[in-house]
């Protein structure tokens, strides 16, 4: 039992904005009161936040592990995590090891993370990595927009059966939601091609287009009442002028719920790499007027990182552009994956625009409840750099200072110099915790109301937000003290959330023969069994979806 007293509490979901009040914890949950025997945490001069929730990150899985093997030179420069009685050894850096991931997230006051891209065939591997990621709670989204069984069904207008297959796949992967990456484009990449426009026919098909796939999967996520809507990585990522594709996609999704992943990468104007500019304004204007959409920023920070995505064709292009190492891993019948180490440089026009667009979107989107703070870790920057973004959002003078590093041409392509908005602490609590929890449909996360999971981060109330959010004074996970004085004091195991949509079990009879024909393992070995998922917590599919 625990009483946190004297701290300024920020709990946006319950309308608490910087009010000094007690937070009581018992049995891993927030409760109304505790008796006098409870441990008292004196939080005077500190602020109390609900634990951070990351809506889009890549912290475990075959693709990330492939990347780890590709960049030993980055690990050598990275921060080591020492073995202690509480902690296992590891390495932070751009692709933190499993144990390090848990420690570093918790060490920043973040307690839940959504691994955003899992191929079903290697979902078992992802769950094994997530099991070895301590402290934080995890969930994951299963890749579906290039799954050939689904695409074949859509080609034959068999939507209903595709829905059953999708429901089966979500549960078979022990996933929480549906992810779509470059719908159709990755399937095309299997033939060395791509799908840039929404109405291009997917290579290898006669009629299916990205638009068909996106609409179908959005409908499926809604009809199955998944707590998290379709998690969409749009077509034409990273290309100058791609904002038109993004706008078309958002228009297509009218009437559906949808989460637009790393929107920054999809909001560029211009005609080529030399004329690239920000198109955050048209994207944000459309977004602001369409409450069916949520997004995460996918912000970029300067420095070394490694890009990892299921978007194979884009990664091949990036490899040709940069001449850096390239890893590609195509996954049978389901998806692909590309890995390219990358350095974002201030002097590079494209990188400068990318940096600005991420911030512009967060500043131009008026409703903080619909935008989440992410860097698409590790693509835009590593998750442990979030406090830098918080400072950029909260301090316009600091932003102005940063803008001086760019060329006039780069500045002319941004709207950032004209934006004076500064985030308040309450708004930071929304974009780092309350909004992502709501977007994911995790009712027990992202707030400090009675009955919520007692995931709490307590920060020193200092002037510099970067310093404040880099080193929490205390972090509690499920009511247990994890971090104190900048040290991990206790390493517990987190839960893994999954959903079990309603589907017709007879769909297995349809899948089995197809599977034997197209895959290279037996059907019985394909789904992840419940025993394989450590700390499995199955959530109901009862999202309220306006039809």
């Amino acid at each position, binding site marked *: 039992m625990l009483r946190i007293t004297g701290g300024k509490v920020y709990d946006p979901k319950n309308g608490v904005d910087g009010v000094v009040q007690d937070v009581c914890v018992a049995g891993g949950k927030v409760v109304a009161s505790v008796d006098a025997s409870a441990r008292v945490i004196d939080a005077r001069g500190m602020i109390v936040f609900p634990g951070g929730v990351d809506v889009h990150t890549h912290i*475990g899985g*075959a693709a990330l*592990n*492939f990347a*780890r*093997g590709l960049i*030993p030179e980055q*690990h*050598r420069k*990275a*921060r*080591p*995590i*020492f*073995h*202690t*009685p509480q902690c*296992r*050894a*590891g*390495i932070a*850096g751009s*692709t933190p*090891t*499993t*144990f390090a991931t848990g420690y570093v997230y918790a060490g920043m006051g973040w307690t839940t993370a959504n691994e955003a891209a899992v191929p079903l*065939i*290697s979902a*078992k*591997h992802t769950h*094994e*990595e997530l099991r*070895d990621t301590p402290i934080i709670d995890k969930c994951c989204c299963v890749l579906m927009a290039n799954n*050939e069984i689904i695409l074949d069904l859509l080609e034959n207008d068999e939507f209903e059966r595709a829905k059953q297959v999708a429901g089966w796949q979500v549960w078979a992967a022990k996933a929480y939601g549906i992810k779509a990456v470059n719908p159709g484009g990755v399937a095309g*990449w*299997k*033939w*060395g091609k791509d799908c840039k426009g929404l109405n291009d026919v997917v290579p*290898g098909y006669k009629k299916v287009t990205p638009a068909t796939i996106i609409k179908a999967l959005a409908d499926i996520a809604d009809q199955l009442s998944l707590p998290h809507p379709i998690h969409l990585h749009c077509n034409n990522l990273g290309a100058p002028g791609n904002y038109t594709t993004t706008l078309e996609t958002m228009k297509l999704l009218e009437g559906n719920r949808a989460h637009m992943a790393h929107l920054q990468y999809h909001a560029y104007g211009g005609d080529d790499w030399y004329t690239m500019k920000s198109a955050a304004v048209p994207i944000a204007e459309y977004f602001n007027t369409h409450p069916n959409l949520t997004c995460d920023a996918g912000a970029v920070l300067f420095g070394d990182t490694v890009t990892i995505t299921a978007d194979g064709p884009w990664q*091949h292009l990036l*490899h*040709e552009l940069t001449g850096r190492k*390239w*890893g*590609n*891993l*195509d*996954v*049978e*019948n389901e998806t692909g994956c590309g890995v390219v180490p990358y350095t974002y440089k201030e002097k590079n026009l494209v990188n400068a625009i990318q940096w600005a667009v991420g911030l512009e979107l967060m500043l131009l989107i008026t409703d903080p409840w619909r935008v989440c703070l992410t860097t698409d870790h590790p693509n835009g920057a590593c998750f442990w750099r979030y406090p830098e973004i918080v400072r950029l959002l909260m301090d316009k003078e600091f932003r102005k200072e940063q803008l001086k590093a760019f060329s006039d041409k780069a500045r002319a392509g941004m709207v950032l110099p004209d934006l004076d908005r500064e985030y308040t602490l309450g708004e930071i609590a929304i974009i780092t915790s309350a909004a992502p929890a709501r977007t994911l449909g995790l009712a027990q996360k992202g707030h400090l109301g009675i009955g919520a999971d007692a995931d709490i981060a307590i920060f020193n109330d200092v002037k510099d937000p970067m310093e404040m959010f880099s080193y929490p004074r205390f972090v509690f996970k499920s009511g247990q003290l994890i971090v104190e*004085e*900048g*040290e991990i004091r206790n390493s517990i195991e987190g839960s893994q959330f999954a959903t079990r949509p309603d589907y017709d079990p007879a769909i297995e009879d349809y899948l089995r023969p197809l599977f034997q024909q*197209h*895959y*290279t*393992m037996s059907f019985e*070995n394909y789904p992840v*069994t419940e025993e*394989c998922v450590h700390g499995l917590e199955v959530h109901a599919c009862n999202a309220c979806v306006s039809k």
Partner: protein
Amino acid sequence: MTCTLGEVKNRADFIIYWGGNPAECHPRHFTRYTLTQKGKFLPRGRKDRTMVLVDIRETMSAKAADIFLQVRPGKDFEMLTILRALVKGQTVSAEAAAETGLTLEQLQDLVNRMKAAKFGVLFFGMGLSMTRGKHMNSAAALILAAELNAYTKFVAMPMRGHGNVTGADVVMRYTFSYPFGISLTRGYPRFNPGEYSTIDLLVRGDNDATLVLGADPGATMPKPAIEHLTRTPTIVLDPKVTHTSRLARVHITTSVAGISAPGTAYRMDEVPMPLRPPLKSPYPSDEEVMKKIVAAVQKKPAWYPVTRTGAQVT
């Protein structure tokens, strides 16, 4: 650039095996994944595929090949480099080609076929990765496959074997960032093949005890390494009596993974497969033994200074 084996089954119309003898060393490879299977986009199976074997001698696998190219021993790197040049349309002299034991026409023909393939795959074995040039050969093979992607779809994959070696590689990577050759002596992972890899440690005599899990170094490693294993305490966990268990101080008999112990094995393409044991064993699994060892070790006080306040500084 690689892929899972199902991609090869469904799409690969052009297959190269280089420095490997799958007919004898990976006997199910042809029939389950690569050659004879009917694929989704290759309905006629073997008839829709072309197979090339590059090796220094005509092995059993050559019978299965449409084209056999006999490279001169130790000239793999030269041959790969010439292929890369030809892929880019550069001029190569006939003498340079002759170095490899093949003619320029043969090499040009191979390049034309690689470029004309819809989906090509290059499997390379220890005949490439463990002979003269070693990792430089593997790098050249991977770069050749990467560069071919400017013209068509092309992937490469090492032919790994020896049980679940891929699984060990995968787990090491996600716990320590590196696949092998890791030292934890400073309390965090460091990677330096040649310094921390097993043979080098043993030959130099750096370690004063060895724990052997699911391997038989006593049968395969150089003599000085084996001598060090004999000289110092060696503990072996193995279901069977092996060369290593004979020279070990302690041999703990364990159950066989996949037959009497559950777990996960990784295929050479890093696809995880659950192991469902059909039999029960009186012996504990490797996992059970290791957990007991770890628990016993944890009871001992740490040998390093443990600070309770302040962040550790590197």
